[in-house]
């Protein structure tokens, strides 16, 4: 397991999401879809619970009518340090990288779907059919992200292609990565700046600072999965 506070050579990627700032606008959902070439399954398949959203806004209602409040929570792969999805894969299609990412190797996946069944956050998505993009969406495909075929599992990568670019840039400039080097699509698209991304092993980074906040919590911490996504509680709940 990668320790967050440990001094490692490699950056330890993490995300912080301020629930107080999230308006549930779903800009992140759209940005993620375009950035990561996520297949469009269409309305019929979507009605059969087969839509793919690497990040989604979960809506929970609180209270009785007319005093109803809606809580939003963007949920994406939590990149657990002790991920339940990893050991159950028989072919190492999902494993843990040295940067603390929960990696998914599409070409290695045979499609047992065991990982999705063992994910407490339900953030793994299966390609039930070959991917499709109704015109003109196929023109917007990102050349830096591979297309997944049918029969394989996929999920949020923390925009691994952008992480690699940021790391290369830092290496070219002969320095450690710093805030702003890597901005995943969802983070960059958030109009209220509710999302932060960075190296949590660097105690000066924004994510590390937010992780120390008294509002910081992680989803289902009691399961011992040690997620790398930190949620900042709404102040009225703090």
């Amino acid at each position, binding site marked *: 397991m990668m320790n967050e506070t440990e001094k490692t050579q490699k950056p330890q990627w993490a995300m912080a999401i301020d629930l107080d700032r999230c308006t549930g606008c779903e800009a992140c959902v759209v940005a993620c879809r375009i950035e990561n070439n996520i297949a469009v399954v269409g309305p019929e398949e979507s009605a059969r619970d087969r839509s793919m959203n690497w990040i989604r806004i979960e809506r929970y209602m609180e209270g009785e009518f007319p005093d109803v409040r809606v809580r939003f929570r963007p949920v994406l792969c939590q990149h657990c340090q002790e991920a339940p999805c990893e050991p159950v894969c028989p072919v190492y299609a999902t494993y843990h990288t040295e940067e603390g990412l929960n990696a998914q190797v599409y070409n290695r996946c045979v499609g047992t779907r065991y990982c999705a069944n063992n994910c407490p956050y*339900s953030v793994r998505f299966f390609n039930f059919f070959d991917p499709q993009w109704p015109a003109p969406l196929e023109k917007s495909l990102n050349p830096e992200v591979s297309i997944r075929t049918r029969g394989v599992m996929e999920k949020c990568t923390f925009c691994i292609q952008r992480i690699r670019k940021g790391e290369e840039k830092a290496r070219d400039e002969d320095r450690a990565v710093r805030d702003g080097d890597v901005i995943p699509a969802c983070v960059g698209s958030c109009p209220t700046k509710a999302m932060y991304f960075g190296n949590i092993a660097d105690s000066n980074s924004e994510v590390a600072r937010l992780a120390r906040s008294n509002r910081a919590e992680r989803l289902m911490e009691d399961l011992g999965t040690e997620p790398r996504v930190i949620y900042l509680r709404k102040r009225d709940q703090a």
Partner: protein
Amino acid sequence: MDRARDEQINRDLLRSVRETGWGWRIVVAISGMGLMAGVAAFAYQWQEGIGVWGLNRPVMWAFDITNFVFWIGISHAGTLISAILRVTGAGWRRPVTRCAEAITVFALMIGALFPIIHLGRPWVFYWLVPYPNERGLWPNFRSPLIWDFFAINAYLMGSLIYLYLPLIPDLALLRDTSRGLRKRIYSVLSAGWRGTALQWDRLEKAVRVMAVIIIPVAVSVHTIVSWDFAMAIQPMWHSTIFGPYFVAGAIFSGIAALIIAMAALRRVFHLENYLKPVHFNNLGLLLLTMSLIWFYFTFSEYLTTWYGNEPMEKAVFQSKISGPYSPLFFAMVACCFLIPAPMLAIKKLRTITGTVIASACVVVGMWIERFLIIVPTLSHPRLTFNWGSYKPTWVEIAIMTGSFSYFVLLYAVFVKMFPIVSVWEFKEGLASQTQPGPATDKKVFRAASGD
């Protein structure tokens, strides 16, 4: 040895091999068509993608894995039961063992197909096999699916050998009493068996060793199948009771399948003098025991969940007790306990017909049990926003029908090629019955030879 009686036994028990009736032809034709339907459905799924099934997010397993667990469960009919009866020296086992061992082998073969059928990319199933390969990859031995691979392989190999060994003398008998191509086939299969005293001795020793080894293997197989679920941290899956619960359920459904198969064989091949009411009575009592054990396990499992009152577990629990899955739940309780237990407990009802009705209920009930273990948990993930449901499509139903047809077909072909009641073991049993006292085979011989 009574020559006339021997010849009668040979005639009766080899009749299924020698004569082909219309009943057999019709069974083969119907099951063959069922198998074709299943194969066609699988071909369609292969071509289109697994989306032609009713699976979705969050229900990523349903009929596929239900059938997998069901067939692996049925496979516990044979080798385990016959090994236990052999090790404990139960004399009445003799006409039953081969019938049971054949169920094991075929149910395992079919059960092992489902993990392949259910893959998103079934054409790369061999990636799970550990061998040095050009991809430079090994499978992940920490995955319960790889444990399944090893366990099912060991059990299938063991069961095949355990079926084959006691079959050898009968194959030699077939070889010596047939002509032409059949003789040549049985010559190869009987592996040069001559029936020398040395061969009989070694056969008996080997079968005894196998019986002892196969019992823990059989227990481990269904335990590991249960661990596919118990290793996951999902509500009502992550349970330490699952290993023994599944093993008990497997033996339960296995005995039920055995009773049904025996009744069918008895009727079709006129084996009334071999598969007698006493066998159905004894197996019925075993089935009753397993029904009680099954109820005990189920009650403990659900009681602890209800009392613990943990919200995520409770959600799954409620969906089974009072939610959308409750009709299935109560059907399961009725089929696995409320109907068969009283039927089997009352001596007057423990007839052949009675045990067959009870067994049919149990087989249906145990299929529902596996479905209810898999689907309600998956449709109620921890984040309630993602709750879902599941409905099968015709493709899944066709594949399931295909699996049942395939089983019947394999069994029918087996019966056509080999005597389904072990000829030599049956004669051996008669010989030991005619001798006074609790005689082992050795003592019988001594007594007969005036030693």
